[in-house]
């Protein structure tokens, strides 16, 4: 391949070509930078442009989950102080179960009564039976551990749970779900279950233990599924539900302790207002670079 022009005039030099073969290109130094330099570079191709209002509305699901966890901790505190006795707790459990089922029935398009009975009802009954049978084990599990360690562990486990929780979709999926849950969401579910077990082990009687375990597991395992279904069904319903939940939680926490109320309020404000603003501000500095040097993406599924 010849890149020397068969030219008569010595002033016309051949065009610079972006090739590596053939040695030094005549008339050009090796550090010659052409106008075509960096023309294959693509900037910010995959960046999503975000709107402040949308980000704030999306962050409502995070604060909704924070309130749910706050309510669970509230119920735990009241149970440990014996403000709520076991019968009341059992009533709470049953009402939560029934309302959860009703919400699922009304909001999922593909569900029918037969699926409800066969899949959910049977599984839930086995689940409850198993919990009741295993309650004595939980009761004596941490008898030799001091209370301080239990509170410290529970708090750290809940923090891990909140940190690693999958806020976009639920880990426990309804039948017919395609994607497998990610590692971090499995870790968060496990953390919440272990925290519930620790709290349950501090309670006096078997019925107490069973009731609190049922309550905690209902909320942690099925709560995300229910909120996910509400969100998918209607955004407005989701918004109303979240705001009412926040109001209810804040009032209950206020009745318990003022300091915790202030903390929870500031956390909700931080998540809902400060973080979206921060995100929008630093998005301006995003500089994503793609070009011919990137590894090619295969268009078919590979096997490992």
């Amino acid at each position, binding site marked *: 391949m010849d890149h020397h022009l068969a030219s008569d005039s010595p002033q016309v030099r051949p065009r610079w070509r972006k090739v590596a*073969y053939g*040695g*030094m290109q005549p008339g050009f130094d090796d*550090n010659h930078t052409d106008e075509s330099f960096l023309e294959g570079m693509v900037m910010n191709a995959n960046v999503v442009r975000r709107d402040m209002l949308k980000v704030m509305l999306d962050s409502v699901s995070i604060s909704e989950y924070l309130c749910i966890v706050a309510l669970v901790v509230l119920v735990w505190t009241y149970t440990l102080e014996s403000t709520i006795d076991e019968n009341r707790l059992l009533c709470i459990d049953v009402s939560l179960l029934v309302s959860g089922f009703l919400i699922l029935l009304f909001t999922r398009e593909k569900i029918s009564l037969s699926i409800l009975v066969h899949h959910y009802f049977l599984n839930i009954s086995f689940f409850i039976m198993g919990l009741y049978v295993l309650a004595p084990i939980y009761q004596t599990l941490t008898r030799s551990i001091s209370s301080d360690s239990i509170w410290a562990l529970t708090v750290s486990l809940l923090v891990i749970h909140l940190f690693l929780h999958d806020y976009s979709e639920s880990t426990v999926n309804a039948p017919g779900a395609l994607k497998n849950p990610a590692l971090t969401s499995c870790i968060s579910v496990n953390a919440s279950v272990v925290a519930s077990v620790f709290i349950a082990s501090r309670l006096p009687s078997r019925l107490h233990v069973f009731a609190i375990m049922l309550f905690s597991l209902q909320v942690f395992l099925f709560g995300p599924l229910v909120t996910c279904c509400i969100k998918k069904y209607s955004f407005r319903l989701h918004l109303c539900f979240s705001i009412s939940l926040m109001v209810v939680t804040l009032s209950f926490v206020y009745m318990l302790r003022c300091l915790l109320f202030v903390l929870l309020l500031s956390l909700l404000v931080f998540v809902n207002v400060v973080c979206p603003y921060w995100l929008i501000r630093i998005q301006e500095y995003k500089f994503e670079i793609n070009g011919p040097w990137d590894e090619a993406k295969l268009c078919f599924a590979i096997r490992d």
Partner: protein
Amino acid sequence: MDRKKYRIMMVSDFFYPNFGGVENHIYYLSQCLLKLGHKVVVVTHAYGNRSGVRYMTGGLKVYYVPWRPFVMQNSFPTLFPSLPIIRTILIRERITIVHGHQAFSTLCHEALMHSRTMGYRVVFTDHSLYGFSDAGSIHMNKVLQFTLADVSQAICVLHTSKENTVLRSGLPPEKVFVIPNAVDTAMFKPAVVQPSRSEIVIVVISRLVYRKGADLLVEVIPDVCRLHPNVRFIVGGDGPKRVWLEEMREKHSLQDRVEMLGAVPHAQVRSVLISGHIFLNSSLTEAFCIAILEAASCGLLTVSTRVGGVPEVLPDDMIILAEPDPGDMVLAIERAISMLPKVDPQVMHHRMRELYNWHDVAKRTEIVYDRTLKCPNQNLLVRVSRYLYCGVWAGKLFFVVMIVDFLFWRLLELWQPAEDIEEMPDLTLPHISNKETLQKTE
């Protein structure tokens, strides 16, 4: 014109007895520079028992510094403790230019840092392409920014590599020279007797990993075998994806049409290549791909994926490019098969001798060295203040690191003065003096 002779120190973690692109580059470049009359010394870390000073062909002196490799053939990053030994070697050999290779080599970065502290001229060659988005690349790019903040000139092996390096390090493009690798055409000659064209043989030699496109091979080979009954494949190389290739062979009953050779030692690559007509490269990312040059030098027509710098490497009548998609690659192989009757391996080999030549690479590198020595040597504060531009926090950290390095160097000058380090006299090799006596007796 009597050119000035330089005393060059090549430094990298990657050298013989390891085999690879960077190792070959350093070795061949050093040999050609030695032939041009310069003095070259190579510094690398110890490989197993191979520690100390060794002499290779042509009087190439190699310092195997006694450090153990830490991960992926890199020595453990020790920042300041490497200053004494680098200083000793630089003074002992009376080095004028330090040439570092490969951004992934910790020894290279440290040696360049210390050389700049001591005021030597520094050239850096980058051999790979890196991304920008994953954690490893981000850290690597920051380290590269540090090293290249004060380098005299930089060399990249392809124009795509130059764009990548300029973006990663923030160097001005005028400081980056593009000097490609070359191939030892004397070692890769086509077969004296060509294999018969009645059965077309396609050769694949690569590590069978995801990056090298082994998954594409699994999709492409059955389609090609189905469409062209006279085509045979030879697959050399080993890796985690070999299992899938074997499975593909079994599934489509291609045991007699696809031959799996396993890992091919470098000395036998030529004999595998000359048994074929077409070379297939299916990598998903490739900085330079010497394998393509070796295949072209042996007279094979190349079919490759259009990734990285591959489009710049060979002219259009010696390579056929395809997108990294199985359908497109099958079409490209068909085009190659139809082009095969017009291809003459000997002609291709002679053309490769013109297109790629290590002596040409050495001459162009010499020009870079000339340019390096013309750069004014600024005083310490001007040089070190360049590091402040590396970033808000990183800049200040790098500044402090360089100041500490400078103070350590001054301490060493007091403690172990340069006059006490014995300078190495230049050796004259016996084969040169033998040639002279032969000429005298004739």
